[in-house]
């Protein structure tokens, strides 16, 4: 790990609150170590701003290891920036060149109102899960874990879908700001497992309805969500959601 550093300009979206008008501002990011993460680069810029008594750029972050789903911004037109399968906090500055200007924007979607600068309100995702992204089992009701064997393939596929971190990059990247990938991943996880079967029909209907209600668009199969997803969740989940939906749509026992 060499001590190499680069100088950059960042053009970043500043917006004081949900109703305010936002605009871009450009700042220098000097002597940034190439081993720093993207968020650490923002920390450096923010420290500078603080030193000049300016308000630092607000951005969401927490775990900084790519799992909490808190971070995220559109960097040079790409959700979570240029490295595939990588959250913003795991993107490192070695992916940029000295002298680059980096444009940083918040997720933009009707379903994700801007809170401040790069921070958006993703509570719509919670409400989609509230609509049915669970198994209705109360604490204490469960049978022994080995009572129902689950084929390894089904468990693995459920895990693939369950890897979603709920960051919202799929919505941000989708030309329709669709939340289909997020919604479908949860539906798929629970549809793959026997534990999810009793409620699978009402689940898919209710979650899709909620997704619509939150103002997200529909899936036109642009595959941009899959390309942006830091956890490589596949569009196949959407295929699966549609299949579940068809089974439920006309079913008399919903």
């Amino acid at each position, binding site marked *: *790990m060499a001590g190499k550093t680069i100088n950059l300009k960042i053009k970043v979206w500043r917006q004081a609150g949900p109703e305010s008008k936002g605009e871009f501002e450009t700042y220098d990011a000097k002597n940034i170590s190439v081993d720093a993460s993207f968020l650490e680069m923002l920390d450096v810029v923010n420290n500078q701003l603080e030193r000049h008594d300016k308000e630092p750029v607000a951005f969401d972050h927490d*775990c900084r290891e790519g799992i909490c789903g808190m971070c995220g911004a559109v960097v040079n037109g790409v959700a979570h920036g240029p490295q595939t399968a990588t959250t913003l906090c795991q993107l*490192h500055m070695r992916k940029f060149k000295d002298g680059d200007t980096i444009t940083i924007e918040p997720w933009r979607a009707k379903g994700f109102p801007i809170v401040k600068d790069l921070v958006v309100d993703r509570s719509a995702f*919670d409400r989609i899960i509230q609509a049915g992204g669970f198994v209705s089992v109360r*604490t204490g009701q469960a049978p022994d874990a080995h009572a129902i064997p689950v084929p390894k393939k089904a468990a693995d596929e459920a895990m693939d879908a369950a890897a979603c971190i709920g960051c919202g990059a799929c919505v941000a990247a989708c030309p329709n700001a669709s939340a289909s990938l997020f919604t479908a991943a949860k539906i798929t996880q629970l549809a793959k497992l026997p534990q*999810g079967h009793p409620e699978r029909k009402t689940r898919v209907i209710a979650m899709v309805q909620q997704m619509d209600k939150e103002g997200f668009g529909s899936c036109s199969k642009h595959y941009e969500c899959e390309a942006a997803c830091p956890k490589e969740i596949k569009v196949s989940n959407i295929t699966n959601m549609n299949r579940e939906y068809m089974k439920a749509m006309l079913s008399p026992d919903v």
Partner: protein
Amino acid sequence: MLESHIPSGPIADKWSKHKFEMKLVNPANKRKYNIIVVGTGLAGASAAASLSEMGYRVQNFCIQDSPRRAHSIAAQGGINAAKNYQNDGDSVHRLFYDTVKGGDYRSREANVHRLAEVSVNIIDQCVAQGVPFAREYGGYLANRSFGGAQVSRTFYARGQTGQQLLLGAYSALMKEVARKNVQLFTRREMLDLIVVDNRAVGIVCRNLVSGKIETHTADAVILATGGYGNVYYLSTNAMACNVTAAWRAHRRGAFFANPCYTQIHPTCIPVHGDYQSKLTLMSESLRNDGRIWVPRSKGDKRSPEEIPESDRLYYLEEKYPSFGNLVPRDVASRNAKEWCDKGHGVGATGMAVYLDFRDAIDRDGRDVIDGKYGNLFQMYERITDDDPFKLPMMMYPAVHYTMGGLWVDYNLMSNLPGLHVLGEANFSDHGANRLGASALMQGLADGYFVIPCTIGDFLAKAGPSKVKEGHAAVRAAEKEAQERIDRLVHSKGSRAVDDFHRELGKIMWDKCGMARNAAGLKEALQEIPRLRQEFWEDVNVTGSPGTFNQVLERAGRVADFLEYGELMCRDALERDESCGGHFREEHQTEDGEALRNDDKFCHVAAWEFTGETTAPVLHQEPLTYENVKLTQRSYK
């Protein structure tokens, strides 16, 4: 004064006996009770969901924008349970025994036994929720082994066990929110506890979006606010992890137990620059297949693949033939430090050891190793730009977990009636060192299975609280919180918040870190108050309090760390022995292992806050061991 309320009787019967003896709240009356749960990690989410299912009305708070982002999400390796699905001799008693021993005989036997008992129910519950644990081809659950145990009892979901368990608890919570029985308050930070007539009856918090100070009252308050590892600035904890909730409760009368117990995790990516904001843990499970070594000769600067077998020192395997690389964390960490201090460390800073997969890859093939650890390898490569398939990983210990926490009795209630503490925020089950895969177990045990039983006993006996929003004590607490914020914002000094945090972290790491001694601790006890004073005089908090203001959020947390760090050092100085993660250099065996002093320190140190200018008072809860014999831990 410290009454632990441990039920009498044989250890294996205590919990069932206690469950029978506790008073119950009648089903129809439950909905009359309001319970505040602060935190939505494994402990908080599982508690909030379970209590709501039972009929209590719950208000649930978290700092993040969604409950699903609590720090529990980051746990990688797995969760223990005494299922004995591997038929390798595991049992509730063995898990109990391993945990007490792993904790270096500084935990409460009764609590640990209950933990081991309910561990099996946790797995059942999670599977029923749709948690996609790893499975074998037959469709049954897979297990791996973890440090400090010789059986395979760890359940896992790839390298994302915490995520999957939390999403399970979160989904249960969302189900209850949908029923409108849990009221969710996200982006709220608890700033104070409201205590009236020696009963916790509410909290003060800041709405992080609007900046408004809010008060909430209830019949009981549950804190599940996680650990305080970020007192070190650099740790594997998420950025928002804080001691604020626990510390404020402490200042209102709750005792803080064993604050000096911190766990340093042996396998983390080494520090590489001063811009660095956090350290990244590499799961302990890597030690199942990775071999730890340093060059045999000091200052060997050859690249690792050029160092022949004979020049490699596999120090854990040599020193601990029976546990090898799978010794508990405190032991592994200390040995890494020892070899680096002796000059055998590798990497640019010399503060790293190798974790090498070469032999495992030769033995099992690249695909098998990729299947087991692929995502961890990827994560490592993303951060360091080195490919662990080609070069060994470089690792160094980092602060990871905090065994200390608010003191609780067997019912998980603090000494302040009405205040319950769960998960990493309490001190209860891990003694002086936590075994891998046991924090997830404890968080979920507390939330799913313990508190739902024990809180009923409190409520049934104490009845509803009569304190309402307009109560003078509520208004007073609100005013105090507001004044503190105003003070922070108005100090308009010259130094950034992070500057102070970094400086505090350095003091803590150097003097109250992996190894401690009386002289260093005494210095720290001088330095921290000085730094704290400087903070209040010279901190620069930009922006206004009435808005979304992340600098202000951090400032408040750092202010509390600056008070808390002092208590940690005080406790570390007071505990004049070595045990588990608390290693006092003055007390070690010839082999450099922690040397306990059971005659003088076989107790829980619970500190009482007495005021800002007066010293805290130490209370001791003696620990008695009736089922496990105290011995010098040996992993040889």
